[in-house]
Every structure is written in structure tokens, then in C-alpha cells.
């Protein structure tokens, strides 16, 4: 892979922005809520700005890895601080920037332990940025763990609805996943014959088939836990429900993509033969997840559970796209990671506003919210329409690419998954009808609609969905520039 060294350490700055913000926050007084918010928002804004910069300035004609920075870290083990951007992680970095920025804005009204909250959130996002930009397997895993741990505390302290159980379940699940990833990574490191964790170099090594098969399945299930691959998904709806709004946004919007990205970047990239061997299973689990998610979601009564299961289903689409191993499928898959991240952040953000007011998310208690708060409801309805796969939003293109290529490679599973989008529509509109239409519940009638400032994060998310929905090439050409060489290397 061609490398283009950065003339300025953009990626390091992107990574350091939340760290610096976090450090400043630690020195601020607990009562200075406003200042803490402003600091975290500026940190998020810098990260977002840099991610937009890399996204826009990535040269698709040049291709390869750009904005590269590589420093030796632990020489004896061949560990490098090695970061770079290509067409696969550029959208995901952008996604992380958008979600953290809108996430901080969404939590603007938080009053409870503000300092710790924003500190942990910035720690979490540092981990996420680190995973997406690392090209060194060890550092990748290091950041991966950094991203997972703050989640536990965030849910435990600021959560709701069975938060202790949920936090514990989530953490144990993800730790179990890590327990599979470590042996996978070490197996690859040990059998490579070159003393390095550099993934680009490891890609050049042709591992023995048994190594590939073993390492792939370990990494697939290890990362798959975080990507909510069926049947390892049950931590995710529970976790979403318990987490505070912005954490749900980060969690469903970004963290689940870490899993899928790990499968793509580590497992498939380093073990192409292993991937070929396990692709059938991947497609099966993904297709089951797609169908299963919508059907279970159909029976839920808690708004956040509904969204949680829709995430299971939509992450199934990501998995199905990866499993096809075709350019179209992986294009769609990466696009879906981005689109689903934005969409689900919008979902949780919209629900968060309503929950903060009414303190209930039970569908049968709500109702008529379009009348009470038309704008806030509008955002949810837009998200629901995205979820139902309506054109004009980014997710439509992603699903289109994945489904067509899935029908081509795995006809039965593809058609089955495709058929489930009818239920997907029913699923989304059922919630919209029960929550936002009909006569309003008199109990909630006095609540005010969302103000323009508080609505800003949702507006940003909607604008992103629509921008890439109308001009998909802005995203797709970039993704394609990395996926084409990637698939040719499979």
C-alpha cells in the first residue's frame, strides 16, 4: 500500500484534542458547568474539524494511506505508533467527529456530575479515534480497550433502567470479546516470522491456512461481539437502554462500528483465506441478525429497545456486505457503517430529548408528540424513515449496494434479508404512529418544543444524512478508492 507521509500531524492532533480537553476539564472546578461544556465542545469541534479536513483532503486519485505518521514505540516487539487514513477509515473518523460533537451538544442540559461525565466521554472518544486511525495491531487493540472501559462507568453512574446489570453485562461481554481478540492477534504476530505489529507489513505475509482459519474465527467473534453479530447481540439493546443519551449515541453510532471495522481491517485484511473459509457462516449470521432484529424489535415497548434492535438489524446489513467479499458489498458495508452511525445517533438524540422531559420511553404511555413538540418529533420521524430505508438518506444507498451484492453472492440469504425490509417499514412506522401520532397524552401536553440551539445536534445529523443521501458519490468514491485494492488483495 502506498504511503503518503503527513506534512502536519493532523491525526495526532485529532487524537490529542479530546485528551487535551479532558486534561483541562480535570483542572476545572466541579461547579463550572458552563466552562466544562465549552471546553469539551471545543475539543470535540477541533476533532470534528480535523476529521472533516482529512475527509475532504484525502486524494482519491492518489489512493493508499495518507496523512501517515509512524514513530517507533517498543522496538523489541515491533510496536509502532502508526496512524494513517484511507478510504475505509476516513468516513469512520468523520462519523466519530460528528457523533462526539453532536453528543456533547445533546448533553448540554446535563446537571449531574458534569465534570466526570464529560471527562469520561472524551476518554471514550479518544479510544475510538485511536482505533480507527491505527495501522499497528497492538496500538489498535490498546485503543480498543480504552474505548470500552469508560462505557462501564458512564452507564453505571448516569444510566437508567437496570443500569448495574446492563453495565456489567456490556463490560463482561466486551471483555469476553477481547479475550478472543488477544489470542487472535498474538497468533498472527507469532506465526508471521517478522517481529512487527504493523498491519501493512503483516498483510504481505502469507499465513498458513490453519493460522488464517483459526485467527480469523477468533477475531471475527471477538470483534463480532462489539458489532452485535447474532447471537452475541443481547448486550447491545440492554446497554443502549441503560446508557444516557449521548453515550447511547456514541455506543450505537460509533462503538459498534469498531467491531465491524475490526473485522474488516484486522481479520479480513490479514486472513483473506480464513475469510473465504468462514464467509458462508458470516453471511448466515448476518442474515439471521437482519431478520431477527426487526422481528424482535416489533414486539418491544420501550423506545430505546426498539432502536437497539433496529441497530442489531442494521449492523447485520454491515456484516452481510462484508461477507460478500465483493467491491459493491464492502462499499455498501462501509457506507452503512457511516450511515447507520449517523442515523442511530439521530434516533437516540431525538429520544433523549423526549425522555429528559417525560421520564418515560414506554410507547403506550407516549402518543401525539407531533402535536406537543413538532420539531423534536420531526427528528425522530426522519430517523425512523431512514431506518425504514427511504431514499434520499445515506442509508438507502448503503442498503441498496449491500442487498444487490448479497443477492448475487448468497441468493437465498440475500433475498431473505431483503424481504425483511417490509417488516422494517412496519417496525419503524409502528413506533412513529404510536408515539408521535394520535391524540396527545394530556400528561405531557405542557412540555415545550426543542429550542433551535438544543435542536442543533439533530439538525446536523439530519443534514449529514441528506447530504450523502443526495450526493452519495461524495462518500462512495472515497470508500471505493480503498475497497478496490482491498478486495483485489483478498
Amino acid at each position, binding site marked *: 500500500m502506498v504511503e503518503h507521509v503527513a506534512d502536519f500531524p493532523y491525526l495526532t492532533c485529532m487524537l490529542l484534542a479530546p485528551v487535551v480537553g479532558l486534561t483541562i476539564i480535570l483542572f476545572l472546578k466541579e461547579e463550572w458547568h458552563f466552562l466544562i461544556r465549552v471546553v469539551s465542545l471545543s475539543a470535540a469541534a477541533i476533532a470534528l474539524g480535523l476529521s472533516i479536513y482529512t475527509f475532504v483532503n484525502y486524494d482519491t486519485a492518489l489512493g493508499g494511506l495518507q496523512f501517515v505518521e509512524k514513530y517507533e514505540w517498543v522496538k523489541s516487539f515491533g510496536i509502532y505508533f502508526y496512524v494513517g487514513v484511507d478510504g475505509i477509515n476516513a468516513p469512520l473518523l468523520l462519523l466519530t467527529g460528528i457523533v462526539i460533537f453532536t453528543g456533547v451538544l445533546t448533553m448540554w442540559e446535563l446537571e449531574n456530575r458534569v465534570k466526570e461525565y464529560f471527562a469520561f466521554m472524551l476518554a471514550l472518544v479518544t479510544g475510538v479515534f485511536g482505533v480507527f486511525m491505527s495501522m499497528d495491531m497492538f496500538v489498535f487493540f490498546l485503543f480498543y480497550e480504552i474505548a470500552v472501559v469508560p462505557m462501564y462507568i458512564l452507564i453505571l453512574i448516569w444510566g437508567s433502567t437496570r443500569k448495574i446489570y446492563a453495565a456489567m453485562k456490556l463490560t463482561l461481554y466486551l471483555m469476553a470479546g477481547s479475550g478472543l481478540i488477544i489470542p487472535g492477534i498474538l497468533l498472527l504476530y507469532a506465526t508471521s516470522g517478522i517481529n512487527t505489529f504493523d498491519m501493512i507489513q503483516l498483510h504481505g505475509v502469507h499465513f498458513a491456512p490453519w493460522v488464517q482459519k483459526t485467527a480469523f474465527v477468533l477475531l471475527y467473534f471477538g470483534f463480532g461481539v462489539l458489532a452485535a453479530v447474532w447471537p452475541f447481540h443481547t448486550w447491545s439493546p440492554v446497554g443502549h437502554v441503560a446508557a444516557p443519551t449521548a453515550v447511547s449515541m456514541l455506543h450505537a453510532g460509533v462503538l459498534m462500528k469498531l467491531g465491524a471495522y475490526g473485522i474488516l481491517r484486522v481479520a479480513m485484511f490479514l486472513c483473506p483465506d480464513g475469510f473465504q473459509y468462514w464467509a458462508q457462516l458470516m453471511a448466515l449470521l448476518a442474515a439471521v441478525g437482519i431478520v431477527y432484529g426487526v422481528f424482535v424489535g416489533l*414486539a418491544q415497548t420501550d423506545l430505546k429497545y426498539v432502536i437497539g434492535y433496529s441497530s442489531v438489524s442494521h449492523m447485520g446489513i454491515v456484516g452481510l456486505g462484508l461477507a460478500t467479499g465483493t467491491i*459493491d458489498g464492502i462499499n455498501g458495508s462501509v457506507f452503512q457503517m457511516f450511515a447507520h452511525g449517523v442515523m442511530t445517533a439521530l434516533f437516540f438524540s431525538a429520544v433523549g430529548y423526549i425522555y429528559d422531559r417525560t421520564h418515560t420511553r414506554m410507547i403506550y404511555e407516549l402518543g401525539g408528540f407531533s402535536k406537543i413538540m413538532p420539531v423534536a418529533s420531526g427528528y425522530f420521524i426522519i430517523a425512523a424513515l431512514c431506518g425504514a430505508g427511504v431514499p434520499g438518506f445515506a442509508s438507502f444507498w448503503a442498503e441498496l449496494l449491500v442487498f444487490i451484492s448479497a443477492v448475487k453472492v448468497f441468493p437465498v440469504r440475500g*433475498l431473505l434479508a431483503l424481504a425483511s425490509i*417490509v*417488516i422494517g417499514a412496519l417496525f419503524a412506522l409502528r413506533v412513529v404512529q404510536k408515539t408521535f401520532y394520535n391524540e396527545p397524552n394530556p400528561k405531557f401536553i405542557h412540555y415545550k418544543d426543542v429550542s433551535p440551539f438544543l435542536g442543533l445536534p439533530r439538525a446536523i445529523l439530519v443534514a449529514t444524512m441528506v447530504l450523502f443521501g443526495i450526493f452519495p458519490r461524495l462518500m462512495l468514491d472515497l470508500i471505493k478508492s480503498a475497497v478496490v485494492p482491498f478486495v483485489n488483495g483478498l
Partner: protein
Amino acid sequence: MSAWFSDLTLLGCFLCMVLPIASFGLIMIFTRNNHKLSLAISLLCSTIPLIIAWSLLYKYWDIAEPIVYNYDWILSDFIKIPFGFLLDPTSLLMLTIVATISWLVQIYSIGYMEGDPGFGNYYAFLSLFALSMLGVSISSGLLQLYICWELVGVSSYLLIGFWYEKFSASEAGKKAFVVTRFGDVGFFMGLAILTIFYGNLEIANINSAAVAQSMPPWLISTAALLIFCGVMGKSAQFPLHVWLPDAMEGPTPVSALLHSATMVAAGVFLIARIYPFFSASPEAMAVALAIGTITLLLSSTIGMVATDIKQVWAYSTVSQLGFMIMGLAAGSYFAGYFHLTTHAGFKALLFLCSGVFIHHFGTNDFFVMAAKGGRKLIIPMVTITIAALALSGIFPFSGFFSKEAILGALYHHPNKIWFLMGLLGAFLTAYYTFRVIFVMLFPKNPAPEEQHGHDEPHEEHYGVPWVMSIPLLVLATFTLILGFCQGYLERFLLGHTLHHEHNYLLLVSAVVAALSGIGLAWIDWGSKKAKCVGFISYVPALENFFKEKWYMDHFWRWFLNVFIYGTFSRLFTYNDRRVVDGGVDTVAFSTIGSGRLLSFFQTALLQLNLLFMVVVVAGVGLYLLIGR
């Protein structure tokens, strides 16, 4: 980019796409609460496409070769989706129909929706609809058409559920979206298969490939049948017709625009659009003919017993769509498309007239309207009668010509049963249409309200606002003259006029069917001695069957409850909670439990520990001693 501005045709097409979406965005974001400004934006953004559509129609009246513009929208690997415009007679005519009716409905809605708190939203949704429907008309590729087609579904969902506080309205919106989605999945599968096995989804390309037989027949048939699923959903064909009658929950202008004239005609238009491709598959043509016929008869019979005026027209729409599909499937592209054109005019007229009555009397029941003196609304009453005459197929109204064309096509079909079914349909159509008209024109029992009406001040006036009556008059004019344009349209659409042999059998049988329907309606509902019961009530079982809408709603409700909610959803949820999640929790809790059990041994009591030690040592010692 300069090409966009130097080529006026391209600029026109482009504006047809951009203006409505701009109007939608502007109104939704900025001017939702300012009714006047919203109206101004929306009207501006629908008037320009109207002018463009008519001028394009005029400019390309003698078009020989289709005009195609294509730009890359998505370039993945083998999935390439162009964004472009295809202008040929088929699309130009549809463009004009859509732009015209949509403009008239926007004008009409000024009066109808006046004072509604959601006035701004309403116009935004109408703009979204205009965008998607204009897109369906001039899309150059099937996938682009599919995208617009889905957007049509979304705007229909939003507009049906416009009065969302009403449970029935929100339910109807959901039903419409999900049922049409049911068909759309088939459509999408068809497109996926075509993409995979053929690749190029440009409409012009597919049509010519099917004509040149460069596509395998199995592929054409499979794809055509799957695409027909989409048609069944959107054009409300049996068994997916159930959403359309419920869709009448939306405001009446919406019913006129979407659920009679344009949106539901999109399915028929799609068949016309890919007619060379579609007709290359005998299987698809046979299925379409059968489905069209079933739909025609089913919905006509339900229309005979409905008492809600919008329901009658809704079922009538379903049946006429079936009739169009019969015409297309019988092999006549022109007949089906011509009926689409005339139907768009007179059915929109019927709905808009009914809207005036509904608006005025606040009821949907035409018996009540009649009793309250509905016939005193002169303009609507005259125009609704014109539209009814057209719907029944009476000379010289437009419906007569297009029905003749379809019946002619059916007549030439080798199997005469379809022709007889078509005649039966024509008879039933005339009957249920004039049932409404005669009830309204000759009310039997005077209004009960008028007897104690002296409490209210006598300011009842039967004037109709001009914004509402002008569209009626325009559409009535179309209904009167469109039939005589048959020859011109033939030359436009086909490039030559059809050879009309004077088949008196055909002509006489069609006229007899229509007149006997009207005659029977006169006997049942119109004449002074009429008993005001339909002839169908002599067979109560059948009447009940029709009143229950052939139990189709019951069937779908049952299907949804038993299969989707009752079986899959419940089973999966149970599995998720008990098996998948339960399994994990069991592992976790048994780990904790075994930890507790072990911790029992880890007490700080020295004596106990010592006892364990002694017991274990003794046990091992015993084992070593005796075990040997």
C-alpha cells in the same frame, strides 16, 4: 456545468427536480408557520414545472428519437446508477398530466385547507410529492425510477396521515406505506436480478434489449413478474388493493391528486414505461390480465354498496386501474395509457367535486349530503355529473373513447372471456357511479335539518370559492375535449394513427353495458318510485360479502396478527429473552453462584480450615493406602 444552462430542455428537467425539493426544504425549515409565504413558495415551485411540462410537450410534439441525459450518481463496481432524464412521448405525457393536476390541486387546496394549522406542512408535503412524481415520469433508469417511486410512497404516507391526531388516519398512512412496500420489495428484487444478470438498468436499453431478444426469456419473465409486484402495490391491484380505500382518510385534494389521478397511476405508467420489455414476457402479460380483471370486478362490486362518497370513488379508482392494466395486458399500450390520461382528468374532477360537498356539509355520506340539499351547489353538481358520465363511458365524454379503446383491445384477445368481463365491469361501473349521482340529484326524503332549521340564522348560501371552482371547470373542460384528441395522442404516442375498423358489435355492446348500468341505477335509486335499495340486496349473502369488502381486510389483519406478530415476532422475542440472553445470564449467574460456593470454603476460621486440611490429607492418604 455550462451544459445545464445552455440546453433549455435539460435545464427544464433539472428545474422540475430542484424546485419542488427546494420548496419542500424551505417550507419545512423556515416558513412552516407562515401560511401565506409557504403557499407562495409552493405555488411558485409548482407553476414553473407546469409551464416547463407544457412547453416541453409542445416542443417535442413531433419527437422521433427519445432524448436521454445521463450523469453518474453512483459508481460502485458492477452497480452503476445513473441520474438522468429520458424524454419520449410516454414520459412527456405523464409529466404534463402530473404537473397539471398537481398544480390544479394546489390551487384548489387554498380553499379546502384554509385555516388548517398544518397548512404549511401540507404544501411542503405536496411539493415532496410533486418532486417524486415528476421524477417517476422522467427518470432515465429503473433504479432512479424506483427511488422516486419510494419517495412517492413516503409523501403518500405523510399526506394520508396528515391529520395524524385521528387514529384512523395514522393507521391508514402506516397501512398504505407497509402494503405498498410489500409490493416494492418484489420490485426491488426484480431490479436486483436485472442488475446481476443484465447489468444496465437504463429504460431505453432494457426496452430495446427485450425487443432485440438479447435477454434470456426466463430473465425477462422473472424480472417482469417481480416488477409487477411493485405495480400491484402502488396501483392497488388485488390482493394489495386494501390500502387505497383506507387512504381516503387524507384530505380530499390529496385523494384527488395521489390516490386517484397520479400516484396510483404510477404502477400503470411503469408498465407503459417498460412496455416493450414487459410485453416480451407472455407469463407476465397473462398474470397482469388476470389480476387486472379480478381487481376490476372485485372493486366494482364493493363500490356498489359503499355509502361514503370517497369510498365509492376509491373503489372506482381501484377498478379503473385494473381496467387500465387489462388494456395494457391485452396488448394495447395505447389503450391503457389513454385511459390513464382520461381517467386522471375525470377522477380528479370527481374527487374535487366531492371535496366541495364534504367541505360544505361536513360529512362523507352522500345520502346525508343529498338530504341536506347537495344539488344546490350548482357548479360541483354539474361537473360531478360530467365526470360521472365520463366514468361510465358515455359519448362524448373522454371516458367513452378510452373505454372503447380498452374494450377493443380485449375484444381482439383470443380468449373472449376477458372481453365479457370487461363489459361486466363497464356495466357495474355505470351502475355504482349513477347510484351516487341519482341519490344526490333526486333526494327522496327532504333534509331533516331543514325542518327545525329556524333556530339557526338563515345564512346558508351555496357559493363555492373561486379557487375551488376554477379547477373543477378546467378539469371538466379536459373531460369534454380529451376524447376528441384521441387521434392526436395516437400519433404522438405511437407515431402513427391506429386503423379504426368500425366494429358495431363492439360499439353497441359497450354502449348497452353502460346504458343498462345507468338504467338499472335509475330504477333502483333515481325514479320517483325507486325503493332506494340496490338490486344486490335481493341476495343478502352476496351483499354482505361485498359490504365486508370480500373479507380482504380481515384476511390481511389475520395474516399480520397470526404470522407476523403472533408467530415470528413472539417466537423470536421469546427466544431472545429466554434462550440467547437467558443462556448468557445463566452462565454469568452460575459463575457467580459457583464463586459463592467456593467462597464458603474460604472462611477465616482457622479451625475449619484445619479440619478441611486434615480431612483432605486423610482422604488422600486413605486413597494411597487402599486404592492400590
